[in-house]
């Protein structure tokens, strides 16, 4: 490979992965209650919504865009699910409808961004409010809880006495798909190009707008899926489900080394970031770190996550410089 082993080692996504492993090992060893299957299954189950949205969000951010409306889309899909369920529709029809709705929400974001050329940050701040508001109109003060038990069990339960929630399996499939799409297909490759230089990508014949539109749509779809999962996992469909989730997703993705200027990052890093935050929060609660201090820790981690690679880079540059200087007299 082109990168030297050292340069690769200081790549932040590898660091986050390593950090995750260290945290897990330490917690297994020293934190009572962490290692048991039930806790782990809870940890995974509670992190899944963030992880699910982080998948398309990573792709979106790599292509230089952002979607802040994901949590609202999730809330809206949950609200619609609740409302339709109350109407007596079958759950098997409701879920696809919700996913479709999510895709439409994403499509609207995408159209506003690509057709009107509006900045995605601004558009999705708007739809963040709009989708949540529509959810509120649809479901109002209701909290729908009586979804069929087999669905609830699937969303909240785990396989036997293992630590593996049922829901982890489909997630792993989605993760694999996302990894392949981003890192091994022409589509993914073009996303990096778009993120790094949209104009150069256009001049290379990449259909920038179409790609972005697809991404926004998929992001909406995944957000809706998350909303459905959320409502089932917590057995509660309310209009304010998943409020504030977008910030958690963004923090995790940033922690995973995805550059918000676009064009850089790996899915592995993003998912490692998601689970690192999840695991840390779980551990800190178990060892009675207060919620306030946990916020500080999250913040410090974020700051370190950007300062860290920079310091690492400087070290490796300095070393390379020394090596070059050392070799000067010989040639």
């Amino acid at each position, binding site marked *: 490979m082109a990168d030297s082993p050292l340069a690769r080692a200081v790549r932040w996504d590898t660091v986050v992965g390593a950090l995750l492993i260290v945290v897990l090992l330490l917690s297994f060893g020293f934190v009572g209650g962490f290692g*048991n299957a039930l806790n782990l299954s809870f940890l995974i189950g*509670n992190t899944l919504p963030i992880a699910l949205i982080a998948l398309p969000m990573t792709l979106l951010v790599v292509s230089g865009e952002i979607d802040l409306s994901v949590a609202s889309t999730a809330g809206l899909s949950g609200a619609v699910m609740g409302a339709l369920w109350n109407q007596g529709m079958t759950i098997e029809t409701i879920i696809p409808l919700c996913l479709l709705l999510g895709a439409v929400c994403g499509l609207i974001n995408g159209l506003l961004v690509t057709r009107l050329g509006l900045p995605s940050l601004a558009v999705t701040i708007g739809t963040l409010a709009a989708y949540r508001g529509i959810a509120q109109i649809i479901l109002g003060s209701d909290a729908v*809880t009586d979804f069929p038990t*087999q669905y609830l069990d699937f969303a909240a339960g785990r396989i036997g006495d293992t630590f593996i929630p049922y829901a982890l399996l489909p997630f792993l499939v989605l993760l694999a798909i996302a990894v392949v799409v981003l890192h091994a297909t022409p589509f993914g490759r073009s996303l990096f190009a778009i993120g790094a230089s949209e104009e150069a990508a256009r001049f290379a014949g990449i259909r920038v707008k179409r790609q972005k539109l697809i991404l926004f749509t998929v992001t909406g779809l995944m957000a809706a899926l998350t909303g459905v999962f959320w409502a089932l996992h917590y057995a509660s469909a309310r*209009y304010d489900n998943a409020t504030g989730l977008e910030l958690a997703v963004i923090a995790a993705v940033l922690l995973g080394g995805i550059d918000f200027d676009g064009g850089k990052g790996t899915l592995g890093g993003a998912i490692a970031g998601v689970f690192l935050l999840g695991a840390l929060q779980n551990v800190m609660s*178990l060892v009675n770190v*207060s919620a306030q201090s946990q*916020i500080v820790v999250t913040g410090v981690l974020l700051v370190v996550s950007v300062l860290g690679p920079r310091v690492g880079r400087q070290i490796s540059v300095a070393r390379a410089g020394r090596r070059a200087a050392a070799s000067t007299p010989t040639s």
Partner: protein
Amino acid sequence: ATACGGTTKNDVKDEGGSSASAGKADPNAELKKGLTVGFLPKQVNNPYFTSADKGGEAALKELGSSYKEVGPSSATDTSSQVSYVNTLTQQQVDAMAVSAQDPGALCTALKQAMKNGIKVVTYDSDTKADCRNAFVSQASAEDLGRTEVQLLAEQIGYKGEIAILSAAQTATNQNIWIDYMKEELKDPKYKDIKLVKVAYGNDDAQQSFQQTQGLLQEYPKLKGIISPTTVGIKAAAQYLSGSKYKGKVKLTGLGTPNDMRKYVKNGTVEAFELWDPAKLGELAARTSVALVSGQITGKEGETFKAGDMGTYTIGKDGVISLGKPTVFDKKNIDQFNF
């Protein structure tokens, strides 16, 4: 399943409705010592919950048990509240007192806790009845709803337009109280009072502020506002006291004496009410210990003695009611500090 094979609401029979209770109660059982009771409020750092939990802490100390508090830093972060239920389960506390952000969302986790032998008491805000052993209610919802209307009606002379400024539209407690307020208003003696609007300030100072402004602009003849939420009443009072409506538009509802002292003294507010949150916490603590000790199981009709607070009887669905709220006004407000 229905004819076409899907699952609809009608297929799902609601098994809930009765509180989760097992075994037999032994009213004379010894109160256990050395227990750990975890308090999980809707939000830590919230003054209301802090004083409630302090009440619980004091009671547990007296009973020779230990207290701990965990909780999310945001009152709408349900998923993190669920994680905290799990945390308490992992830490194998003997009982937990929970104020639920969402009646349904905590259920799976709470049931898991009960399966692990942990007693679950909800306080302030209930979950579905089958997800906990007992609910300690701050006052009967009916009392609260009706007395607030009575308070305001007196202040405005049983005549004029009134409005309600609530918390979030999904706030379970507020919604129940508002229903009782409407119920009370049906009484013929209120025939000249018209409830024009229920506004929602989402327990956010600024939004409650602007909702109050909006109410006054939309209904210039508005005579009174009921705000059954501590955040809402505070914001409304602050707005009124700095506007031309001060003293002209009456305000009542649920507030803490410390929050409202200034507005009572400067004439913005005549009277409002609240229960003593510390007492609520104390009762939750005592209920938890009684449950763990086996004095009660959460069935309707069981009774237990809650220290100095007296004897309480468990009502329908495992609900234990704290009692009537206190009304605060110019005369008595200086006697309270919470």
